[in-house]
């Protein structure tokens, strides 16, 4: 009986026999596999730089383009997942590695995502000569950079915070390191990893659209996808086509939300060490299909069996060379030397970048780029301020009504995932029509997609305010200004800071595409570092790209250290609600 599937399965064989749910599940899985295979083949098509890839504005080609876009997203996600597990495991388990990996990650996090695209695309093209795969890889890499860093941080944090008693239990029951990783450490990391992954994917739609139409050294390469469709529509001034693209993207995000985002989040709750209340127990329909269909038990059992096989093989290897454990004494001199070597390495790297830039760029231009950064910084802060003024009262209003908050939450998450750059053309048309000043009126584009994080977090913060505190405030007659100042603003502050940090980070990133926008052959430019990077990328001027990205990086790091970290600490220390 157990052998029916050709796999050595023992655990509850009846669970593995197909049932009615499989009628839903099987076609979906097979369909997904077929689509992935088809898309993968299309990816490695022949291509020479300079060859024009024609994007058709025929709306019937859109589903195909959307599929290619989604495929890029999936590849990037898988890569991010593998990267985050490996990188975080190394950082969490090896102290020396940790000293390099964590600061590097912190810096990578502040590099603008589209900056990675500018730097890496030529390298990737050279890697796969004569094939489109190089460009595909560059685009996927850009999306990867928008997802991997915060996923890695979350895994690293989780690995560092596995409860001691669970580690001890794992050791008492002789779990091998491999098995401990997959049975204890990864499951422990899952809730926060899934949350960060889903946030990343939501943010990633923006970059997938932005990275498909790449201009390298004067050549525009268009990968078949929704982003290129939009770019073509822009160059042909076709508002109708843009409408179709928005529609298709709407469907894509809706499917992503229903088939991936919600089921995954609900499933990940199973791994919480300390589930905070059971109030949020709605199971998304697709998760129910997955959990009821036997097909998935079969896959699960197969994966477990495979893992066991790897583990047995590994422990057979390890058994041959096992040294007795002794208490390791710290060697301060060695560590000091290691630190000094690291500092030296970092300093020489910085010097190399500086000399590379200074060789071609004059000092006055460097100063000018810093000023451009300041202009963009001013935009980011003003916009965060304006968005806060709008969304904080609305978020509080929604959060105070639990029913409304329940309904608003998924909508806001959906809005955050929707790539705001699809609306850029509409904005440009308006700016042109009313002859508005692009310096001011292009700015809102930066925050179009990221403002939702503020709203979302304010709603979450408000719903977290205990009813008792609200009742006490009512009872004491605390109203209006006093209520805002003493009750609700302090209560939502930690959540608000989280939202504002995310929104600000996203806006810096978005500046590269939103400070210079096109409509046909008209280009609108707002003065700022984003426009500078966009222009130098188009020209393929690598020293200036490096300069622009370095300066942008410095600004982001500077504001993170100076402002956001302090606000975080303040929020964590003073205004926690527990």
């Amino acid at each position, binding site marked *: 009986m157990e052998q029916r599937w050709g796999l050595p399965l023992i655990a509850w064989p009846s669970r593995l026999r197909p049932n009615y749910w499989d009628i839903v599940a099987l076609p979906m899985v097979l369909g997904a596999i077929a689509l992935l295979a088809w898309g993968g083949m299309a990816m490695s098509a022949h291509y020479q730089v300079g060859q024009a890839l024609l994007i058709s504005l025929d709306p019937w080609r859109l589903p195909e383009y959307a599929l290619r876009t989604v495929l890029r997203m999936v590849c990037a996600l898988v890569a991010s997942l593998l990267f985050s597990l490996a990188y975080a495991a190394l950082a969490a388990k090896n102290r020396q590695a940790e000293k390099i990996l964590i600061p590097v990650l912190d810096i990578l996090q502040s590099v603008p995502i589209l900056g990675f695209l500018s730097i890496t695309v030529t390298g990737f093209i050279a890697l796969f000569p004569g094939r489109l795969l190089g460009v595909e890889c560059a685009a996927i890499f850009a999306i990867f950079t928008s997802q991997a860093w915060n996923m890695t941080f979350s895994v690293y944090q989780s690995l560092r915070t596995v409860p001691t008693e669970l580690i*001890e*239990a794992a050791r*008492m029951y002789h*779990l091998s390191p491999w098995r401990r990783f997959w049975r204890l450490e990864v499951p422990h990391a899952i809730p926060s990893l899934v949350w960060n992954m889903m946030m990343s994917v939501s943010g990633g739609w923006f970059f997938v659209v932005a990275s498909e139409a790449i201009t390298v050294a004067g050549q525009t390469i268009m990968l078949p996808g929704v982003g290129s469709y939009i770019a073509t529509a822009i160059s042909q001034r076709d508002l109708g086509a843009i409408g179709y693209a928005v529609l298709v993207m709407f469907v894509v995000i809706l499917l992503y939300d229903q088939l991936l985002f919600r089921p995954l989040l609900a499933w990940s709750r*199973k791994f*919480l060490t300390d*589930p905070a209340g059971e109030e949020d127990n709605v199971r998304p329909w697709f998760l129910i299909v997955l959990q009821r269909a036997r097909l998935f038990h079969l896959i699960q059992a197969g994966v477990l069996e495979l893992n066991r096989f790897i583990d047995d093989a590994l422990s057979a290897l390890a058994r041959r060379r096992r040294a007795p*454990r002794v208490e390791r004494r710290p060697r301060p001199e060695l560590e000091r030397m290691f630190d000094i070597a690291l500092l030296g390495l970092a300093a020489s790297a910085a010097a190399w970048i500086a000399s590379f830039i200074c060789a071609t760029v004059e000092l006055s231009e460097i100063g000018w780029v810093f000023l451009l950064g300041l202009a963009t910084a001013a935009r980011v802060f003003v916009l965060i301020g304006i968005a806060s003024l709008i969304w904080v009262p609305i978020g509080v209003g929604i959060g105070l009504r639990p029913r409304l908050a329940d309904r608003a939450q998924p909508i806001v998450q959906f809005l955050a995932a929707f790539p705001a750059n699809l609306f850029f053309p509409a904005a440009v048309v308006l700016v042109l029509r009313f002859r508005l000043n692009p310096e001011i009126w292009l700015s809102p584009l930066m925050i179009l997609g990221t403002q939702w994080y503020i709203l979302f977090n304010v709603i979450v913060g408000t719903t977290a305010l205990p009813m008792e505190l609200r009742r006490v405030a009512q009872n004491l007659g605390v109203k209006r200004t006093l209520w805002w100042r003493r009750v609700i603003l302090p209560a939502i502050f930690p959540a608000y800071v989280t939202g504002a940090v995310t929104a600000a980070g996203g806006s810096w990133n978005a500046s590269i595409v939103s400070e210079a926008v096109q409509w046909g052959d008209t280009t609108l430019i707002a003065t700022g570092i984003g426009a500078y990077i966009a222009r130098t990328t188009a020209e393929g001027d690598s020293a200036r790209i490096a300069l622009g990205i370095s300066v942008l990086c410095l600004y982001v790091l500077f504001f993170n250290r100076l402002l956001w970290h302090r606000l975080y600490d303040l929020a964590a220390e003073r205004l926690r609600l527990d």
Partner: protein
Amino acid sequence: MNVPLLQTTGVSKTYRMPDHLARLVLDRIDFELRDGEIVAILGKSGSGKSTFLRILAGLVPPSEGVVEYRRLGVSEPVRGISMVFQTYALFPWLTVLGNVELGLEAQGSSAAERRRRAVNAIDLIGLDGFESAYPKELSGGMRQRVGFARALVVDPDILLLDEPFSQLDVLTAETLRGDLLDLWDSRRIPTKGIVIVSHNIEEAVEIADRILIFNNDPGRIRAQIPITLPRPRSSDGAGFRQIVDQVYTLLTTEPGRDGRRGAKPEPLGIGHRLPDASVQQLSGLVDTLTEGPYHGRADLPQLADEENLVMDELFPLIETLQLLGFAHVSGGDIELTPPGRAYAQADMLARKQIFADALLTHVPLAAHIRRILDERPGHRAPAARFLRELEDYLSEEEAQRVLDTVIDWGRHAEIFAYDYDTEVLSLENF
């Protein structure tokens, strides 16, 4: 069968702190667990009893000395020794069955064999029907049953229990303890020896064949008390009460001056590990002691029983009362001193005054902080300054706890003020 099941010879443990001196936690412990024996380890918090249990388990390597399991060295967890944890240590994403099977997974038995043995262990410990439940669906008592099933499924020779009942309410703990003893007495488990770390004196007297009492700072074996009372033991029996009294006496008096009244205590330094007691609890205890049925003098076991206080709650309070000169303890009895009685009779304001005087006289750290603040021109000093001083004597964590305690006492006594935001101690408003 003269070979001890588990034996330690000269086991010491020092923790090396960054930039500080090494701190000795356990000092030369010789211990053996014999076949068929249950040994309970009692000690105040900070006596290193949990660390000792982890050294026995092979989870923590000793700094010096050897641990042997049936004459074989233990340097990492070995087959044959199982452990049950205070907070259950269950994997929340595995079902009851999955958790129990986990213990067998690394042993390489076949899946069918694993399933059979896990189901047996689950039945044995009274969890049948809950095989497919997740830990979060279970109550604390049921969760700890899973912890026991997971430990027993590997047929261990030795069971190490780290305060396994301390997270449970009294009734649940009693039931689970009874069930474990039944299994042990009826030989339905192959386990040959049990070591239990406990914070509950009556629990230890109820189940152990031998009690080890650990000293504080550093942990040493202070005394061993064999218990030969037949099981099941009733906590009302005269023999039982006598042993409980004996344990209380040992735990509440410093070594070297057991019960001698009026003996001059050695002077305390500012690095003295102040007990973790809040002023609220202290004054509550003084009130209780003043009223009937105690009228100023109480038998500690009786007090603990009637006021429903476990060792970890009661001992810091008693220690503080002794420290402040409000009470003295001898022979397992506590008696209020004249200052203690005066405190009891006083109103709220006068109490503060008496408390402040006692603090400045008897607690060197409080007096030290006050003196520094008096001397400084602005009468202000950052808390970090005192924290650094304490870290010369105590671990980082303990130093912080002791400082928090003295700040709490000092604020109540109004001998100094503290600002949370700036972390500065001062004499403001006085």
